[in-house]
């Protein structure tokens, strides 16, 4: 008997371990939609999105609201993938890159017609393209706002004055950029750069490194691959591309206006360790919170052979999970968000909203990046490589390796890019 008892108790304990007391109801009653994002750095915007979720109850009375969940950026791919593979526990909506989740995996629902029309009315083509995969639209960079989709030049006006330059002047070409950088760099007694004239991105996530190099690559006339995205040789290692990488490397090693030991550009700019950087519009909000006394101006990207416009490597868009039970409600919610982004953006002071009308509203008029944004959006869009889909991250890593090897003088730009070309070609052939 005693033995039976102990076995029963043990069985109960084990049973407890495998039973979950959650309700298994799937009825549409009192549901809360979930939205996952890895953009934890916009807490006020995320909160605004949650508040907006309550408006959804007007259309769907059984929807309580929307829960915005910020997933740590480190490891978010593993988390997204596990959840969506398993289908249970996956979010209704999420923020991610369209070529990952619609391209490599078939996890995205395509946008309903009425919403596509809505988007076409209000956004510029360059912005719209970011959410398109294989001809279908899956989302729009709403919650991250257009401001994540292209970079602009930030320049510290105090430092300009200090160097005896006109604080309203700015470099329009790459040559001028170099010129300005030389005058704005500060070095210590041993010759080490302690304030970069122009701060480059050389560390952290490899895809970021590539992305921050692309404005240079493109303005020199280089490309990462052929327009039909089938070949990299001849493009990634074209003479223009090599020239671009050479210039980038020279910034650190020859002209010494940049340093590999100064931390990330945005932070450096905020800490007055860098005079100029290229970065997206969200920095405006960050600077307002973390460096409120910094005086700076924003301008469109300098040019060389080509004008660089909208179109970054990353196509962060709001997407809807294909196998979720609440797709209709989710699209309605996103419609709310996209049409009202201006509200959230005002609260966060973050990046500009994707709607083109908003560029002229009172809020935008007072933003330091308004003219630059308008100018950037009017330029032809940059080559967007998102269309090669799944392998883009890997291509970006290969490119980042080449950039790194060149910057750290382990290989010449030509060798690095030639080797990269071989690897990318192999990838593209799959």
């Amino acid at each position: 008997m005693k033995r039976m008892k102990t076995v029963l108790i043990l069985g109960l304990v084990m049973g407890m371990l495998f039973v979950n007391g959650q309700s298994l109801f799937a009825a549409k009653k009192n549901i809360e939609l979930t939205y996952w994002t890895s953009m934890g750095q916009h807490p006020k915007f995320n909160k605004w999105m949650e508040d907006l979720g309550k408006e959804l109850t007007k259309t769907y009375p059984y929807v309580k609201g929307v829960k915005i969940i910020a997933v740590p950026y480190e490891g978010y791919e593993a988390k997204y993938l596990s959840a969506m593979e398993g289908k249970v526990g996956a979010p209704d909506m999420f923020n991610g890159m369209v070529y990952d989740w619609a391209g490599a995996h078939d996890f995205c629902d395509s946008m309903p017609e009425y919403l596509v029309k809505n988007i076409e009315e209000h956004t510029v083509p360059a912005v719209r393209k970011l959410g398109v995969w294989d001809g279908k639209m899956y989302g729009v960079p709403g919650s991250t706002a257009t401001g994540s989709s292209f970079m602009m030049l930030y320049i510290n006006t105090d430092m300009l004055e200090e160097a005896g330059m006109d604080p309203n002047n700015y470099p329009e070409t790459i040559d001028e950029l170099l010129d300005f950088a030389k005058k704005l760099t500060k070095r210590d007694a041993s010759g080490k750069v302690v304030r970069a004239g122009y701060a480059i991105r050389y560390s952290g996530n490899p895809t970021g490194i590539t992305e921050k190099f692309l404005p240079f690559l493109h303005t020199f006339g280089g490309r990462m691959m052929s327009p039909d995205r089938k070949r990299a040789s001849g493009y990634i290692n074209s003479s223009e591309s090599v020239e671009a990488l050479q210039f980038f490397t020279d910034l650190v090693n020859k002209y010494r206006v940049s340093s590999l030991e100064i931390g990330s550009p945005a932070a450096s700019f905020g800490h007055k360790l860098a005079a100029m950087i290229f970065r997206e519009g969200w920095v405006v909000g960050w600077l307002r919170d973390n460096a409120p006394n910094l005086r700076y101006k924003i301008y469109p990207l300098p040019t060389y052979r080509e004008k660089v416009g909208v179109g970054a490597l990353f196509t962060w868009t709001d997407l809807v999970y294909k196998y979720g039970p609440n797709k209709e409600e989710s699209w309605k919610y996103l419609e709310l968000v996209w049409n009202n982004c201006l509200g959230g953006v005002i609260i966060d002071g973050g990046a500009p909203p994707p709607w083109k009308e908003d560029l002229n509203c009172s809020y935008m008029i007072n933003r330091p990046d308004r003219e630059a944004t308008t100018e950037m959006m009017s330029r032809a869009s940059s080559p967007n490589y998102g269309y090669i889909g799944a392998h883009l991250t890997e291509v970006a890593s290969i490119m980042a390796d080449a950039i790194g090897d060149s910057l750290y003088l382990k290989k010449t730009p030509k060798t690095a890019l030639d080797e990269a070309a071989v690897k990318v070609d192999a990838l593209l052939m799959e």
Partner: protein
Amino acid sequence: MKIIDFIRGRTFYERKERSGIFFVSIAFIYFVTIYYYPLIQSFLFSFFTGPSSQNRKYVGLATYKKVLSDPLFLLSVKNTFYFVILAVPTTIVLALIIATFLNYVLNKKLRDILSFMFFSPLMISFVAAALIWEWIYHPIYGLLNNLFLFIGLPSQGWLFNASQAMPSIAIMQIWLRLGFDIMIFLSALQAIPGEYYEAASIDGASGFSCFKHITLPLLNPQIVFVSIIELIFGFQVFDLVYTATHGGPTNVTRVIILHLYETAFKWYRFGEASVVAVFFFLFLLSISILQWKFRRTTTY
């Protein structure tokens, strides 16, 4: 009753044996379902290609060939070995020395306080430790560079310098693991009867000789134990590197598990990731078997 009798076994010895199996089986079943089943699934993955569960194609050993000749994989192996060579022996030797010295401290209070201080890094998660040290290593605002400048040394790149990055991470690992090893050695040392040393000093042995001929051999099981554990943890390093350097600069801190993570979750090549996982597992297994055999022949 008859069935229970049958299961429990009829003879005394049978009963004993079966109980043993029962006690062990709980753990065994758990491991088979939670760890071995996924591991075998992973192993099977290594013979197929295709992102996750869509479009899988059987390719046999092709993935193995591909991975083994992939320079990035080989680089990550090299880096991991470099890391282990830097971190593991240093940790063990330092721990041994510190534990030996600690053993001589007679004041229990002092010994407790010191032990606590050595042990404290263990209470930090790897991610937190990476952030703390990232901040200490920061080229401009970090504690280390400012200290260096204060005493007249030039500031260093640490995590941003291609040749200093790996040693910087090794330092993090040593810092994190030291306390654990010290505790193990210390407790073993305190269990050694004092008579051994008294006898030796009567015979005129010096302090160092005592250490070499009494302490070390008696600590052998602990040294082997600690070596195995540190090697396993060392080769499996991931969180530290991922948070602090992401494998850079220029892939010098790219370790095997990082390569595995990227291959699986960023590039969606699950076949290749599985191959890496299988190799890794077999490799660690062989090291541990070797260590285990070594121990069996030298215990007293």
